[in-house]
């Protein structure tokens, strides 16, 4: 039992299960999935579908956090990627031509790669604190997205582009497959090759890992590039789901949700350890929470208050000092000698 409890997925899965259970009690048909025109419909499918962009961004963020970094610019990259894709499609003569869609998607992906590389270069090349380095793109990126869309919402009428975010493959939303693909690639790269170890060692101690022959700069650069790409794909999913790009609001607050998902998933913000599966569960928890709040009819704005409490609770549980304080309170007996000891030890 204690082995199960010690597993890093134990608490996140418990929270997710509790949330789902609550939903089941509240509305009995929560788990029901109906087939309509060969597509599956249901609350669970919705959670997966709407949660897809967040999971993607959070996967990229996990690796960045693992190197003791943070990427605040993901929300802006989401907006830029959606904006550039929609702009290039709306300029095309035939919005449904496969070539145009592919070029636009590649353009957006390439641009988000470049933006990720920019962040990576600032962090690894110029040695700027990650939070500050990515702040630049967070501020300027929103402006760039608005510049691309002209401050308005670009609407596209391409059924093929809409397929990416709202189409379905084998009765499941297509976006789930995109997320699964990225997740599998990330898992294979980090857990089947030494790359994951490199990332963790750079997160623990960049100088020491450099001494032992790891190209720390390259690892950090790669991680930010990957994070940028993930955010870019998330932007494609988001914009194609609604067939429009909104430079002002697309991806707003995404960085915060993504960081929250990473933290809930058990990855410490101090770097050196990461759990991709935990992050996915964390993102699903956030999405389920949002859905739950919508469903029980609480004004959606209160989501923020709930999220704040969740962030705080998760962080307090992660804090050693807090756990020690609580544990000391729960212990029924105190021995004077022990108290004396602990004072000297600490």
């Amino acid at each position, binding site marked *: 039992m204690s082995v199960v409890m010690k597993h890093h997925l134990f608490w996140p899965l418990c929270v997710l299960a509790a949330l789902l259970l609550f939903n089941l009690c509240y509305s009995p048909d929560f788990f029901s999935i109906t087939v309509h025109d060969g597509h599956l419909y249901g609350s669970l499918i919705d959670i997966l579908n709407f949660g897809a962009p967040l999971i993607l961004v959070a996967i990229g963020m996990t690796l960045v956090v693992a190197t003791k970094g943070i990427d605040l610019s993901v929300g802006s990259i989401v907006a830029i990627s959606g904006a550039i894709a929609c702009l290039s499609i709306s300029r095309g003569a035939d919005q449904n031509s496969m070539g145009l869609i592919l070029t636009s998607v590649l353009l957006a992906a390439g641009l988000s790669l470049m933006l990720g590389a920019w962040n990576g270069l600032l962090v690894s090349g110029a040695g700027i*604190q990650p939070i500050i380095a990515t702040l630049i793109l967070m501020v300027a990126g929103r*402006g760039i997205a608005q510049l691309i869309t002209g401050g308005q919402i670009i609407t596209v009428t391409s059924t093929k582009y809409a397929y990416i975010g709202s189409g379905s493959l084998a009765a499941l939303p297509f976006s789930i497959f995109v997320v699964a693909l990225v997740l599998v690639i990330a898992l294979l790269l980090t857990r089947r090759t030494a790359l994951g170890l490199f990332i963790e060692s750079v997160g623990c101690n960049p100088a020491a890992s450099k001494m032992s022959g790891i190209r720390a700069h390259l690892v950090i650069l790669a991680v930010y590039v990957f994070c940028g790409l993930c955010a870019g794909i998330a932007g494609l999913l988001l914009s194609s789901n609604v067939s429009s790009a909104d430079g002002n609001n697309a991806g707003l607050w995404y960085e915060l949700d993504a960081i929250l998902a990473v933290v809930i998933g058990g990855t410490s913000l101090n770097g050196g350890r990461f759990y991709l599966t935990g992050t996915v569960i964390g993102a699903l928890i956030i999405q389920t929470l949002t859905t739950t709040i919508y469903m029980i009819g609480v004004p959606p704005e209160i989501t923020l208050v709930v999220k704040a409490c969740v962030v705080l609770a998760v962080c307090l549980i992660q804090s050693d000092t807090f756990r020690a304080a609580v544990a000391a309170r729960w212990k029924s007996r105190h021995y004077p000698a022990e108290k004396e000891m602990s004072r000297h030890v600490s």
Partner: protein
Amino acid sequence: MSLNRKYIPIVVTILLFIVMFTAGSFRYTGFFSLQVLMNLLVDNAFLLITAVGMSFVILSGGIDLSVGSVIALSTMVSASLVQQQGWPPAVVIPLVLLMGAVFGTIMGAIIHYFAIQPFIVTLAGMFLARGLCYVISIDTITIDNTFYTAMAQTRIPLPGGSFLSISAVIAILVVAVAIFTAHYTRFGRNVYALGGSEQSALLMGLPVARTKVLVYTLSGLCSALAGVVFTFYMLSGYGLHAVGFELDTIAAVVIGGTLLTGGVGYVLGTFFGVLIQGVIQTIISFEGTLSSWWTKIVIGLLLFIFILLQRVLSSRRLTLKE
């Protein structure tokens, strides 16, 4: 003339402000007037007040992401109490200030006593304050209280036909008090010491816990005051007021030459950082054809330049030490 290296960033900031203002004056007719200069203060009074609080937080080596939300919450609380409950402003304003200070204190205490990164705690604070706004109301509450309209409309005449608003005067006072606090009081020296190295400050016997918590209290108080001033400016309370404001504030502090790792910087630099942001906006509005998103891009660029500059300067200082 040999300039002390520690003054370089702030001198660059001030020069940049002068250059931008001069360039604007040559380019646009009507730009070069005392009123345009005063309007920088009038329109950015709340940014200035928030940025002063943020300077202390950043000088101590922390960060406060909750400022924008606390401003929104202050406007919301003032509006609902004054407008819907009919409380007198003389009670509401101190109450709002107290609320901001307590909010900051709680965040500071969590940051210090549970050793959680300031980034995360203030992020939670940001969610919480923004959410509380919506708990109060999701609509705009317009204020037509005579005191608030009087505060909004009063113009303090200055020689040369220009004027200042009461908010701008409050902001200038805050800056003056902050400069005194930062450089001439024990608390200010503690903040600098804490930002330089927390461990050294602790070993030196400085009250690290008190200083750290007080810094966030101060930032909360400043944000609440900025919220009050913002209420004078907008004459309404709304949950979406000042969205993304924390970044403008951090940008102002950084452009003002304060090092984000803490311990280095001046409140006066923040003052000019705010003025630079104001000048960018004024130039964009004078240009007429440029859209507002250029502000963000230019501020991003400036941030980049200043961070690189700081990086170069601090690395040179390190090599000199070695």
